[in-house]
Every structure is written in structure tokens, then in C-alpha cells.
């Protein structure tokens, strides 16, 4: 359920762009998904296959680039990827917490059309 609304938006953006460029068919949708957003690529794919039927994006490849969560430690300034994506403990100094550098992305980067 969680991914349904997201996938509909992805499809709307892709189809809208394709129409604007007079493209007949979308062959690929390139998506960027940050780890921290909690969106699961397999689930997006599942809904994409369902929702794209009968649209110019039917049978398009859905390429998802995952962006790992990246945090900068407030104590020692080391940059790290939290363990399992969630536990914000600096592996360099053991400090708890930091500032988010990446991982919140959710965007359609490009589409490929014919």
C-alpha cells in the first residue's frame, strides 16, 4: 500500500514527460530512491507493472538507483552509513547522531523513450 501512491506519481511524471516530447513509448524510467525514505524497490516495481498497463510506459524497465543514508558525525565529523541504514552511531568515535547528508532522495531522474 505504502508504495502505491508513490508509483502512481512516478508514472504520471514519466507519461507526462513522454507526451511533452512527443514520444510514443517509454522504454525505461530511471528513479532515484534514498534509503531513508523507506521505499522498497521491489514493491515499486510490483505497482509499476500493474499501473503502467495500457499506458505508454507499459513494459518499460524501471531502474532504481538506491542512495545510501549518509550521516556526518557531529563529534568527529567522520562521514558514515548508519548500520542497517538506521542506527546513527559513528563507527569512528562511537558518537551518537549526526547530520543527514543523503538518503532522503525520491525523484525521477530521467526517462528513455522511442
Amino acid at each position, binding site marked *: 500500500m505504502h508504495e502505491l501512491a508513490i508509483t502512481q506519481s512516478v508514472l504520471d511524471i*514519466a507519461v507526462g514527460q513522454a507526451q511533452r516530447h512527443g514520444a510514443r513509448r517509454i522504454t525505461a524510467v530511471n528513479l532515484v530512491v534514498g534509503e*531513508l525514505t523507506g521505499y522498497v524497490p521491489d514493491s515499486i516495481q510490483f505497482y509499476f507493472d500493474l499501473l503502467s498497463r495500457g499506458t505508454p510506459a507499459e513494459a518499460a524497465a524501471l531502474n532504481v538507483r538506491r542512495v545510501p543514508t549518509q550521516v556526518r558525525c557531529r563529534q568527529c565529523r567522520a562521514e558514515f552509513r548508519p548500520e542497517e541504514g538506521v542506527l*546513527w552511531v559513528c563507527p569512528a568515535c562511537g558518537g*551518537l547522531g549526526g547530520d543527514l547528508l543523503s538518503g532522503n532522495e525520491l525523484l525521477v531522474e*530521467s526517462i528513455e*523513450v522511442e
Partner: protein
Amino acid sequence: MTVQIPVVEQVLSANDQIALQNRSVFDRYGIAVVNFMASPGAGKTSLVLRSIEGLRGRRRIGVIEGDLASRIDADRVAAAGAPAVQINTGGGCHLDAPQVADALAGLPLAELDLLLIENVGNLVCPTNFLLGEHRRVLVASVPEGDDKPLKYPGSFVTMDAVVLNKIDLLPFVDFDVAAFERGVRAVNQRAPIFLLSCRTGEGLEPWLEWLAAA
């Protein structure tokens, strides 16, 4: 021939546009809007009810209640004397900006100072959908455990305030308040943390002051 078209569009841009429109409606009427997020059972509705009661005479409060189904919460709020609109998402796990835009038609906006939006009980996706709110509050509760900030950083990182509800249960469960506060601070340096109990009323005053100033 295949052609690549650069897009670089936020997936939720359509939602975000409508959230901006909602925000301009709120600003036009001078209404402060607070989005309440929590897991099911943390006490969002109880906190909304306590807030209506605690700010009676000081702030004119309206409420938007988000739930999968039923009018239970909106009826409770209306019984407490605040105009309320129920949004049933029909299984959807979060509120989105268009739903809130539709709900505004059911509220006497000119007569409100403060609008509380109770999101669907879920600590994951409501975070990603802007509704046009000015402030975001996460309601956690003692029985859920003190590790929630570490497990849901994506949610805690965006909050303007964090409430820990059900502190009357602290003597009965293994909940380390300091560990919880450290967990919140790990991902969020700025949000004030309010420890309170909607059941006993303990700790409500600082929360009400914050909300009144929101």
C-alpha cells in the same frame, strides 16, 4: 531509436504543489497548522482532545482526523467542542495534500486560530507527504519502547516537536527516558521533547504552551 530525456523531478512534486496551496490558504486565514504523526495507539487522538480542552478560550481549534475508516475520532473531537472533519483514506497509509485541500471545505476557516491534523497511525510514509502544515509533531508512547527514534530516523529527523505520551506507565515498563532522548537528539537537534501523560494530565502545560505559540 531510444532517446534519454532528463527529468529530475521530485516524485512527490504534485503533492508538494498542493501542499503549498494549502499553506497559502492557512496563511491567508492566519491559521497555524500542526501535523500529528504517530504509530497506532500512541495517543494522537487523546493528545488532540487534551489540547482542545487545555487551550479552550485561548485558541479556536479545528481538527482534521485521518483514519483508514470510521468516524470514531472525528465524533470524539466534535463532542469535545471543536469543528472536525474526518478523512477516510480507505486503506491508504497516510494523508496527502489533496485530501487535506478537500477537507478544508468542511471547516469554518475564518473562525479558527489553530488546525490540528491527525495523520493516519503509521511512522513511515506520512513523513514523506507534506500537507501544508507549519509544524510537525511526533507522538511516541512509553509502551512502544525507547528505541523508536533509532528505528525510525526518517520520521524523527523531520519533526518540530516530539511528545512522549503515557509517562504514567514508566514505573511498570522498562523504558529508559534518557536513552529515548539521546535517540531523538541523534537524528534531531532542534525538536523540543515533551514528556506527558494524556491520562493523568501530568506534563501537559509545557506542551500546551508550545502548541499555543505554534
